[in-house]
């Protein structure tokens, strides 16, 4: 037995537990779901062991395709909002004096410690029919509007929830940009906007990419936020799955929606990664 093989065996021993958990609790259920999605629905037995493509055909009904597009749209809008709102925060944190950083980081992640249901009820208090905003509008004689149950409401809820997932990787990326590089750009005549577009943004691209992937994947599979803030009007694929599993008891169809969601997520991620890699190569980071 030589050293290399001992080394390899040690490595395998370290990898095994994680890989085992992944296999047992992710890949096996995933395989089961994919299998379930091509089986026939039965109102009495939930599923029959007969192969069919009906579940996927059903998905191509305009209603379900519409929900898919809404889901993708909400995912992309949330990602964009998190990036736009998160960059200044990330920059501020990356450049904050070390003794204050702990306080700021704590404030940033505090929302994650609150249950998302409670957080969303906070939004309901603000945006509800009898909520703070509407009450103010009515008092001003402007009449009330339904501020909930639309795409912006869901995007607002998800953005608040997912902002830290964008800020943390962005902050790590910005921290690696030496301050002197910023000062050099200024010294060469760059104003704040030029500094951002030509230096800060290209150099923080890796952080932006990982932050976007996190926010997009989490938001596209959202369930509680669209259920509470979107109501019956704004539904995402997650809500469909939930209804099919618990209300209609049509598990094979629910499984096919889950598979579509997986494919949509993966497709958008791959496209995004490819674009970003192209951008990074052009700017010499790859």
């Amino acid at each position, binding site marked *: 037995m030589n050293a290399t093989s001992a080394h390899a065996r040690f490595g395998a021993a370290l990898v095994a537990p994680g890989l085992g958990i992944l296999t047992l609790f992710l890949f096996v259920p995933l395989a089961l779901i994919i299998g379930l999605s091509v089986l026939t629905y039965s109102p009495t037995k939930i599923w029959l062991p007969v192969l069919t493509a009906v579940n996927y055909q059903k998905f191509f009904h305009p209603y379900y395709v519409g929900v898919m597009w809404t889901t993708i749209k909400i995912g992309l809008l949330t990602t964009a909002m998190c990036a736009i709102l998160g960059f200044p925060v990330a920059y501020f944190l990356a450049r904050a004096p070390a003794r204050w950083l702990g306080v700021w980081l704590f404030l940033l992640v505090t929302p994650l410690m609150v249950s998302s249901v409670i957080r969303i009820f906070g939004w309901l208090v603000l945006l509800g029919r009898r909520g703070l905003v509407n009450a103010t509008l009515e008092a001003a004689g402007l009449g009330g509007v339904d501020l909930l149950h639309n795409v912006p409401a869901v995007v607002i809820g998800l953005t608040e929830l997912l902002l830290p997932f964008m800020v943390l990787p962005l902050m790590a990326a910005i921290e690696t940009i030496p301050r002197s590089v910023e000062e050099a750009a200024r010294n060469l005549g760059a104003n704040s906007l030029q500094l951002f577009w030509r230096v800060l943004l290209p150099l923080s691209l890796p952080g932006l990419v990982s932050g976007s992937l996190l926010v997009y994947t989490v938001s596209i599979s959202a369930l509680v936020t669209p259920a509470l803030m979107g109501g019956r009007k704004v539904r995402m694929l997650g809500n469909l799955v939930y209804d099919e599993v618990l209300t209609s008891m049509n598990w094979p169809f629910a499984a096919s929606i889950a598979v579509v969601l997986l494919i949509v997520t993966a497709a958008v991620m791959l496209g995004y990664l490819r674009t970003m890699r192209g951008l990074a190569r052009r700017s010499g*980071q790859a």
Partner: protein
Amino acid sequence: MGDLEVRALVKRYSDSAIVGPVSFTVADGEFLSLLGPSGCGKTTTLRCIAGFETPSSGDVLIDSRSIAGRPPHRRDVGLVFQNYALFPHLTVGENVSFGLRLRRRPASEITRRVHDALSLVDLAGLEARYPRQLSGGQQQRVALARCLALEPSLLLLDEPLSNLDLKLRLQMRTELKKLQRRLGKTTVYVTHDQGEALALSDRIVVMSRGHVEQIGTPREIYESPRTRFVADFIGASNLLAGAVVSAGAAGVIVRAGALELRSTDRTPAGATTVTVLIRPERIRLAATPPPGADVNRLPVRVADVVYLGEDLQVLLDLDGGPTLTASLKATLAEKDWAAGTALTACIAPDDVRLLPVAVDAPVASEAVTP
């Protein structure tokens, strides 16, 4: 066309640390160094000129016009950073053309000026490389070219050579001087390396603990330091505490321990106690006392001889007095002086300098040799 005036510049920090007041002028085309140990305020002064620090009071003027109120990107001042601060995501060509593209110059002009700037620093042809593909010295040149491409009225250099190894540093020092002469660019150079400051500068501003100690040509700074700090910081020195015995037309007699020395220097105004400075290379050693009355002759004993290649450092014990260090060319010295050899140290009265005794605590006692 590019003269700089720094007028009573003061920068206060919250923790009661103060830099300044600092005042100096740099004539058009002049090479001025800010020299001092770390924390002396030289970088703060430079950053105030570049606009990255806002002075608490005082003014910065280029061609007699105040630039103190302008943001850094509107100052027409080129700054080369200690760590080069190149843009890692841009090629050498894009780095050098960065400022020109911001100013929306026509493409043909950009190409020409990038090529010219890179030719100046001997890097023409490397436009397509990325900074990480270059050596430290090459990166340093790109940083310089990036500034020069904009033809700023003033060039600021913040310890630009300190990240290079010794040999490269000496080579870059020569090239920098040559380039600055050729372009006639007004330059302010920040360094803690006295050798660099002496070799490069037309004039040097020596700073310590936030204030200016002395401003003068390299020769003035070395030959006639005005404070104990300057004498100690620049070059090697023997510094002795002395008392003025008499002052007359023939010079000043000072007593340092059991020694009496004659000096042609002037006593600092009204002082009865002084710091006596004798540069090690101005001490001549002889086995037998040479004739001639005009020289201080001190009987000494060799304590140790340190061979430094080019030079020989001889540590001398004086009878009942302090120790002295003498420095001789190794080729001239008799190399077989054993410890305990009795010699005569000869010091011309011109080489005995009298400095005011430092008012504040003597920090200067640590680093004597460079």
